[in-house]
């Protein structure tokens, strides 16, 4: 199927496709470094409670900054390349994306009903392709994709819902038959 001419009804067959699972281990030191790198000064994000018996900083009081899901949101979204469907003739088709032509266009974090991210958490992110469409002036069409993700901790508690949107430039996307 030719690139740039993917019919909308074909693109919509990929919508809803579950996009892998990303596992992310939270370390207090990393949470603090991330918060400091964006200029955060509030103590709940950057100041450890004290020192533990082994002399290491005690990060038990530190919570993940509201911008912290940047650490895994994009790599989870990269699973868009896995999206596929099987047509009524039994042929399997894949959304083939050149990640080098991908432009990150939007990001959103939703914390309603979520628990804070803490040192030592093991986080699981599951995503799905929420939308895909081609827009743009003739010759400059982009494939726009939206990926919805949910991240839960190892107790199964929701820590954040993430929405990632990206545009893939012309020549960077096609629908390909999987052998």
């Amino acid at each position, binding site marked *: 199927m030719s690139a740039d001419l993917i019919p909308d009804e074909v693109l919509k067959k990929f919508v809803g496709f579950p996009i892998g699972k990303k596992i992310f281990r939270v370390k207090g030191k*990393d949470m603090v*470094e*991330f918060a*400091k*790198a*964006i*200029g*955060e*000064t*509030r103590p709940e*994000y950057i100041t450890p409670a004290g020192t533990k018996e082994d002399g290491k900083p005690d990060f038990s009081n530190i919570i993940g*900054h*509201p*911008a912290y899901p*940047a*650490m895994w949101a*994009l790599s989870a979204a990269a699973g868009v390349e896995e999206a596929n469907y099987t047509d009524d003739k039994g042929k399997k088709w894949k959304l083939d994306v050149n990640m080098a032509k991908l432009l*990150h*266009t*939007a*990001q*959103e*974090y*939703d*914390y*309603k009903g979520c628990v804070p991210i803490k040192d030592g958490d093991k986080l699981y992110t599951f995503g799905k392709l929420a939308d895909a469409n081609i827009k743009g002036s003739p010759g400059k069409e982009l494939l726009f994709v939206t990926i919805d993700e949910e991240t839960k901790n190892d107790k199964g508690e929701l820590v954040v819902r993430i*929405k990632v*949107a990206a545009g893939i430039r012309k020549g960077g996307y096609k629908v390909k038959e999987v052998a």
Partner: protein
Amino acid sequence: MVKLSEVKVGQEFVDVVKNITREQITKYGNASGDRNPIHMDEKFATDVAGLKGVIAHGLLWMGFVGKFLTQLVDNGKIIKWGGQFRGQVRPGDDVETKVKVTKIEGNKVSVEINQFSSTPIKVEKGGQVVKKFEAEEKGWVDEKDVKEGNIKTKEVPEGTLTYRYRLSFPGTAILELAN
């Protein structure tokens, strides 16, 4: 810090991160794990990616919004926030975040976010250019900036500063404020 009892629709809050440095971009790259060379390797960004030099991570300037929101809510919560990435932020830019209250419902406050990057180009005095910035030397400003009215001037102690001022991150947030 914004108190629920004092907040009003239309009220605007402003934060400026001055003069983004390459060190700051590298620090964010290391802290976030996003070490894409377009952000951290001048030669790669110029010669391979054709970007006329390194650019900041979109999630870094989004992070500046997050940092400002945590300051505003103080002991409250950020329920939801996000926005779109526009243009590029480069070393030497100032990043200005404006947060405007659009709705108040109980303790939930909706805000509109508009973040702008300000790129210094040159300083002129008596018809002579007395200082050139990287934007002038490396050709970061183009015809599109002129057409869109992004080129501005203002008086500074050394003379008249010409700079580009453009939207880098429009978005929205819902905040839960404490009294």
